[in-house]
């Protein structure tokens, strides 16, 4: 399905990541934004609000982040594509309703502009410290999709993609950006509406009285209806059956929760997207995502110039994690270098998926500036010289 041209600001623009994100949302057909102001995500809501009237979108500033996501879930059930945007502390507060979103299988998008944590941290400095939180932050078992854009253009593209994934798999999708990308200004090309493919909502189209809100299709995703159409359905955050009625036993828990996990895990190949450069002959591969991939690609070029065979694997989709691809590559290469703006999160996943076939070097990145490649280069050099596989993650000072 093509998108509604009303929200698409066709042309080539010079936009910050945050503004590109707002444009991406409007282009994807998002018509409801609920926020609580938090640095460094403010510009998304400003841009959205400025454009809301002409596009016919709704904007509400709620009293806290808890209610923000609750309102987004409510709005999504009225048939509007909905989104919220926040930063680390806000994401922490949203976790409970994220769980509700997973349980009600509500499509919605959460944009997280990561800043340094924990606690109040540094609200105006980039970080990638919420990556594990996006996957594990709410209680109970679930799977989620998280994308990591590395430029304003990707902020635009990935926001649209996030809406599409979210409608297709009926799961909240997180766009895990960071302060650097959010405030970085670059050229963003917005294609015309007929070039933007969007995923329509998976509506139920049967007789009204036989609608079952959690009856799963072949691909384990149930179909939705809007509020106010006379379906009179019931949904609950409790463990429920197909009708959405709570049942408190082991069998129902299995029946309800296992498909929540399967509907993502069984389709990882369709969901995951990675960008690979020079991996064919690489001895060392830099695995990166979000803003760090900007430095990673630069470091790769620099290392190639100095004669080290380095490749790059950029994770567009961070969750679900591209386990298979990393495992394949691990057999071919000597080592992975993983630069992250945290003290080790995705690198643990890389360690897990390399199955002892390659060394894993962790580069604590960002101290000298996000685009600085010194640390990555020294890690890459170290990695290229290391011929035996060591136990555990090797941390580069």
């Amino acid at each position, binding site marked *: 399905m093509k998108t509604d041209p009303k929200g698409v600001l066709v042309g080539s623009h010079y936009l910050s990541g945050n503004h590109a994100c707002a444009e991406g949302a409007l282009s994807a057909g998002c018509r409801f934004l609920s926020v609580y102001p938090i640095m460094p995500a403010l510009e998304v809501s400003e841009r959205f609000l400025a454009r809301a009237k002409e596009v016919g979108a709704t904007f509400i500033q709620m009293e806290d982040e808890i209610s923000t996501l609750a309102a987004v879930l*409510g709005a999504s059930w009225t048939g509007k594509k909905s989104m919220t945007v926040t930063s680390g502390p806000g994401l922490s507060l949203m976790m409970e309703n994220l769980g509700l979103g997973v349980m009600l299988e509500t499509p919605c998008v959460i944009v997280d502009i990561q800043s340094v944590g924990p606690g109040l941290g540094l609200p105006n400095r980039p970080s990638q410290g919420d990556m594990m939180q996006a996957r594990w932050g709410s209680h109970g078992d679930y799977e989620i999709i998280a994308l990591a854009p590395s430029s304003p253009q990707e902020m635009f593209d990935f926001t649209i993609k996030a809406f599409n994934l979210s409608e297709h798999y009926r799961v909240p999708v997180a766009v895990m950006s960071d302060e650097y990308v959010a405030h970085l200004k670059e050229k963003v090309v917005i294609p015309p509406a007929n070039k933007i493919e969007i995923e329509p909502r998976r509506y139920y189209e049967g007789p009204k009285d036989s609608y079952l809100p959690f009856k799963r299709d072949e691909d384990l995703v149930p179909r939705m209806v809007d*509020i106010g159409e006379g379906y*009179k*359905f019931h949904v609950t955050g409790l463990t429920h059956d197909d009708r959405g009625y709570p049942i408190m036993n082991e069998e129902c828990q299995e029946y309800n929760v296992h498909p929540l996990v399967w509907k993502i895990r069984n389709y990882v190949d369709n969901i995951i997207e990675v960008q690979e450069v020079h991996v064919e002959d690489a001895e060392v591969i830099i695995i990166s995502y979000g803003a760090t991939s900007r430095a990673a690609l630069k470091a790769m070029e620099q290392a190639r110039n100095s004669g080290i065979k380095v490749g790059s694997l950029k994770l567009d989709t961070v969750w679900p994690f591209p386990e298979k691809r990393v495992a394949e590559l691990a057999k071919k290469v000597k080592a992975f270098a993983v630069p992250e703006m945290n003290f080790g999160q995705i690198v643990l996943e890389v360690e897990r998926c390399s199955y002892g076939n390659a060394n894993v070097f962790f580069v604590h990145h960002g101290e000298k500036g996000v685009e600085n490649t010194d640390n990555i280069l020294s890690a890459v050099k170290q990695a290229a010289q290391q011929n035996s596989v060591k136990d555990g993650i090797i941390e580069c000072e």
Partner: protein
Amino acid sequence: METLKTKKMKEVHPMEDVLRMNRIPHIWCPGCGIGLAVTAFAAALEKAKIDLNKVAIVSGIGCTGRVAGYIKLDSFHTTHGRAIAFATGIKVANPDLKVVVFSGDGDLISIGGNHFIHAARRNIDMLVVCVNNFIYAMTGGQVAPTTPLAAYATTCPFGSVEPPINIPYLADSSGAVYVARWTTLHIRRLTNSFIEALDKKGFSVVEVISPCPQYYSRINRLGDGLDMMKFYHDNTEIRHGEDTKNLDIGFQGKIIMGKFIDRERPSYTERFD
């Protein structure tokens, strides 16, 4: 009796249009008043002459939180305390809908207190039904912000030490446009209140005082549901338009009921446009 038995399978309650009869019997204890609040609400829905397809009901967690599951509307059982926030999203995204939040005192006033006062301030057009049974019953009888001073609960084994909140006063001071309080015994007046409130544009609050025979009454030795109903009969007073600051409820003290606030204020969606 014989005839009743033979006809039984065909019998349907007149409220089956608005209730999910296939889920009833419900989970509430014998003598619990939540069922009465639901009866009154169901009766009001039938009498209010509104398009039932356009009504959404949202509940939080707790005994009253289960109400959404028994009413045959588009119904949502959400997280603890977030019913109003969830409903705000529904209402703002689609202003054509009538949104009702049906939840308990702990859910709406304790953990959801912030959403309650903010929705009242914004004057989001919704009806909030707060069933007040003075205790957290679903988790086994913990002290609630409505538990009267010196009443017992499991987390205040020596009597509650916190003055209870006056829900109508809180709603009034935050800007609600319609505030009423009834007990479950005053079922017809409660029904009429629901009808009025459903018709009202803006944030309306109806507090329903309800017996909790299994926890509140048992811990405080107040008898069963029927005893509580008799208590309501003897110790209530109707005072329409009473100043909301006089509506505190003491332990086994007089309960003042009535319609206290009925005013006009532009609602959120009106202001937004």
